[in-house]
């Protein structure tokens, strides 16, 4: 989800070549039979990877009265057990709904801001000449792995002094800062791949750097911007430590759920649906944009 997440997103979408069309069908059937055990093994593994999430979903559908007495598989055996009652309850719970709204604000606001700041800097590092450029970029690379723990205490003090403590803005700014090294790195590497001729001809036409940036670079950089936006969105949506440190009443979903886990067991009917809600949204974003990745990649690879 962090630095190398970008490569990950692309690779999921990598088209797989299947160039064995000309084979006699007997050979194909033979291979399929030979691979039966492999298919079964991988099916078992896929189930193992799917069951935990599915288990949480089905647990969240159990009636509150029996949630501490029976396992989620009872819902599979008796589908009539399932109820949306727990979800109705959390949507009537103002602590959860306001946390959801806070999460949306933080994730959207900070993603937009990060994309703007990172693209500007990425363009400067890729196409503008200035003294110390390479050194500065090495500095950015060095910051890639800095653990955010080193900033928590000083920023905590600064936020308390400036009134940014316990505000959405304070959380947003912190997330932007820690998303920047990766963001700049990603943008710069993508922008630097834009053909020189395009840039030169724009400059010869007398376009200003700002104009080149907005009219040329941003449209061309859309695939990279999309992946950066998705990673940052997921990263901040899923954050716990930053919000836990710099918020009290400004609670995103993760913190709201966390404060409930202290009495885990007595309140699974709240924790399970709220957790599923908090993970369903990034999951949808991820699955939806996986397709976006495929299109962008295919368009890029045709060239």
């Amino acid at each position, binding site marked *: 989800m962090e630095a190398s997440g970008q490569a990950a997103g692309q690779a999921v979408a*990598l088209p797989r070549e299947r160039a064995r069309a000309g084979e006699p069908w007997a050979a194909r059937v033979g291979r399929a039979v030979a691979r039966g055990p492999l298919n079964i093994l991988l099916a078992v593994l896929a189930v193992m990877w799917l069951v935990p999430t599915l288990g949480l979903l089905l647990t969240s559908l159990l009636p509150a009265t029996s949630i501490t007495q029976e396992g989620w*598989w009872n819902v599979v055996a008796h589908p009539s057990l399932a109820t949306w009652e727990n979800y109705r309850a959390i949507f009537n719970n103002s602590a959860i709904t306001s946390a959801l709204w806070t999460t949306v604000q933080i994730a959207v606001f900070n993603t937009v801001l990060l994309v703007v700041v990172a693209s500007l800097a990425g363009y*400067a590092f890729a196409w503008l000449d200035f003294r110390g450029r390479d050194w500065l970029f090495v500095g950015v690379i060095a910051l890639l792995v800095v*653990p955010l723990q080193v900033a928590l205490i000083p920023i905590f003090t600064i936020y308390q002094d400036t009134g940014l403590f316990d505000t959405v803005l304070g959380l947003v700014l912190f997330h*932007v800062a*820690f998303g920047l090294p990766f963001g700049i790195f990603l943008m710069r590497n993508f922008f630097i791949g834009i053909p020189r001729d395009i840039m030169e001809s724009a400059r010869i036409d007398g376009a200003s750097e700002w104009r080149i940036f907005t009219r040329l670079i941003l449209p061309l950089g859309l695939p990279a911007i999309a992946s950066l936006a998705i990673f940052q969105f997921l990263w901040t949506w899923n954050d716990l430590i930053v919000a836990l440190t710099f918020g009290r009443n400004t609670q995103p979903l993760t913190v709201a*759920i966390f404060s409930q886990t202290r009495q885990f067991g007595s309140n699974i009917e709240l924790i399970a649906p709220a957790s599923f809600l908090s*993970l369903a949204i990034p999951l949808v974003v991820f699955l939806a944009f996986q397709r976006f990745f495929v299109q962008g990649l295919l368009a890029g690879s045709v060239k």
Partner: protein
Amino acid sequence: MEASALPAATGTGRRRRERLVPLLFLAPALVFLLVWLVYPTVRTVVRSFFGRSGSDFVGFDNYKSLFTTDTLTTAIKNNVLWVAVVPAFVTAIGLIFAVLTERIRWSTAFKTVVFMPMAISLFAAGVIWRVMDQTDPSLGTVNATLKVAHDALSSSGALTTAQPSSPALTGSPSSGFVLRAVVRPGGVALMGLTAIPPGEVPADAPDAARPLPRAGAIDGVVWRDFKPGGGRPGVVEAGEQGLGGVDVELRPAAGGSAVASTTTAANGSFSFGGVRPGDYRVAIAASTFSAPFDGVNWLGPKLITPAVMIAYVWVWAGFAMVIIAAGLSAISREVLEAARTDGATEWQVFRRVTVPLLAPVLSVVFITMVINVLKVFDIVLSVAPQSSQDDANVIALAMWRTSFGGVNDFGLGSAIAVFLFVLVLPVLALNVRRFRREQ
């Protein structure tokens, strides 16, 4: 910013603007990096040499407590374990998955399923596994699965709640039941049990055998001393079922360990042949009364770190798989085919061609995982209950708990943060060197 709209610039003005433009593009990013990353890092290093109040210089005292306080040394030990186990494990799983998915038709679906946990927060993943890891097998998925396996493996007739049917037999399920009377070769042992749930005796179990005395041997029977309608205790009657698969021991009456042991037949009969003259006691071994499986305590102090690790591997395996699969698709098919044509087995191709060619990708995945594992935080907090958090402690969590979780010692917290920073420094240097070589 619309520079082209400005009147044609003079030579020096133009040069100044050329210098100014990059600065304008960079300024927002630089402000963020300086204020939120660079300054705080320096400040944290300085702060780590001051005590709790922030005004008393304490030198290296905070670093000393880092290595002498119990909860903190546990955190360091656990983190060492994390680094030793998890990155290698995740990389290996990723490699295996990547290679195997190459050979199936539904590889995209498989990859999506395994990669999906990456979209979920580590915190929510922790909640998922906390639900999975509940101890009660009727609630926790992991223990429910283990129970199915446990019940399938242990013998069908395991007695859990059996009691003696008459005072002739004494003892308890945990120590086993012993026949009060001494038995000599040529004697008979009748061992009646009651209070056995119907499910623990097969419905088609035969009636109990009535043992007859035999010279030089001790024969006997273990049976369910009960039948619909009652029956007389201590007497083997028609309609009373034998208990098969019961472990029976022959012990010297004077004490000491068993001299012989056997298992009853389906009709409950057993026999010790060729017994030397002497006094013996016959006992039903404790192993017969296997306790029901009540689940492994995953969230307890002993197993909490492995439990968190399993959850973490579940999340990150997809990442490793996807990166390695991308590296795999970049390997030339001809190289692999050439090796196969030369008669290499699939294992040799994997071991001698695929893995060496993938080495750079594998090391990237491994190093990324080391960094991630050093910073592990959220998932520990959500899998481990309050009661096991000291046992599951890791450096990043220790830093947070020391600074914000009640102790509120910013000096010690800063020292832990600096320690964490020092641990990632080698990777930082590696990244910088790799970049400079590429330039």
